């Protein structure tokens, strides 16, 4: 085949012929087996090098690569990981061992105002105490306690310190009062143990709780429960 003929074939397969030239070429093609083979071969080569096809292949490959990378961190697995972490976290939160300090916090309740209900002429004013305003209660009771060291004042003052998170000051107050043999002895023991736990003096706290446990007062069951949890 002549070299010029091949250029004609390429123009034919690339659609670069005019109408008349194309008609003549088609007529020749329909009767020339050799030309048919040449056209077929040229089409194959054109298919291999066709720039549009090469560009299309590149685009498809890019889409495949992009999706492969995306799959590497698929949203499903990302969501699954987050859910798993939340579950583990929640499980840990529910089953976690409660720290002794938190336990003391859970058991801490203000000592009830038995004075106001018993007598309208009480020596101390528990108005702020009953409102949960422990800062003002302390301001009011501290001078009274300093002057009298009176157990009732000491109890409400100590409990107020505990309630506002000042365990050390509470313990100092409790230790200044001698309640042995009085009706408030067990009350002081209970609040002292809570203060001691908050101050991480667990042995001393447990010693006092053991005393309460053996007693048949209101604190006996609470002390027993707290001891079992502290163990």
């Amino acid at each position, binding site marked *: 085949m002549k*070299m010029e003929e*091949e*250029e004609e074939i*390429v*123009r034919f397969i*690339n659609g*670069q012929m005019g109408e008349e030239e194309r008609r003549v070429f088609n007529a020749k093609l329909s009767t020339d087996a050799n030309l048919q083979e040449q056209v077929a*071969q*040229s089409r*194959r*080569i*054109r*298919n*291999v*090098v*066709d*720039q*549009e*096809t090469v*560009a*299309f*292949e590149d*685009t*498809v*490959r890019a*889409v*495949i690569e992009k*999706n*492969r990378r995306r799959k590497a961190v698929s949203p499903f697995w990302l969501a699954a990981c987050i859910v798993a972490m939340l579950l583990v976290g929640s499980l840990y939160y529910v089953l976690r061992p409660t720290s002794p300090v938190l336990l003391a916090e859970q058991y801490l309740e203000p000592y009830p105002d038995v004075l106001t209900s018993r007598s309208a002429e009480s020596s101390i004013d528990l108005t702020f105490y009953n409102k949960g305003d422990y800062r003002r209660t302390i301001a009011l009771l501290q001078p009274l306690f300093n002057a009298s060291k009176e157990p009732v004042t000491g109890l409400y003052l100590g409990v107020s310190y505990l309630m506002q998170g000042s365990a050390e000051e509470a313990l100092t107050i409790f230790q200044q009062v001698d309640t042995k043999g009085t009706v408030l002895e067990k009350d002081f023991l209970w609040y002292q143990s809570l203060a001691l736990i908050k101050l991480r003096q667990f042995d001393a706290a447990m010693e006092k709780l053991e005393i309460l446990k053996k007693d048949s007062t209101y604190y006996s069951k609470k002390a027993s429960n707290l001891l079992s949890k502290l163990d």
Partner: protein
Amino acid sequence: MELEQLRKGDKKLIETLYKECFPGISSWVMKNSGTQKEAEDVFQDALVAVFKRSKDASFELNCKLSTFIFGVAKKTWLYRLRTRDRHVFTDFTQDVDVSDQDGLIIEQLIDEEEVDAVYKRNFRKLTTQCQQILSLFFNGHAMKEIVTKMGLANAGLARKKKFNCKNELVRLVKEDPLYIELVEK
């Protein structure tokens, strides 16, 4: 509409076709002795085959484009399995919802693609200069342009080189065992 987008090589359409077709193709290929990488190659080849065919103005489909591509991909993989003597577990007709007419087009398209693949493989065996000159020539560049781009002495030399390169490619193809098998089929 989709065919028109395909003819233009629309990237959004390719993304859509990937989402619609690839999970199924991947699952099917992997069920039939293939790997994820082979599934990707099959998807790409199927899409390119349909892209090439879509340039033919008379090309029409009686089914969804994604269904057709799915069919081409499956048939392509089956053909490759046979040539590699690997086992096929699934019947081709089982999951492909195409008409007889489209099934016939797929058959023809696969045969055409396999011949193209032989040409492509042997084209890569040519020298870089041969690949460049054939690429320019068959993409319709004028000889003068080829002379300039390739830094050749004159158009006569360019024609001679192109002629020799093409003959070398045709020789390689005709000696390719797969081509012989395809021609005898």
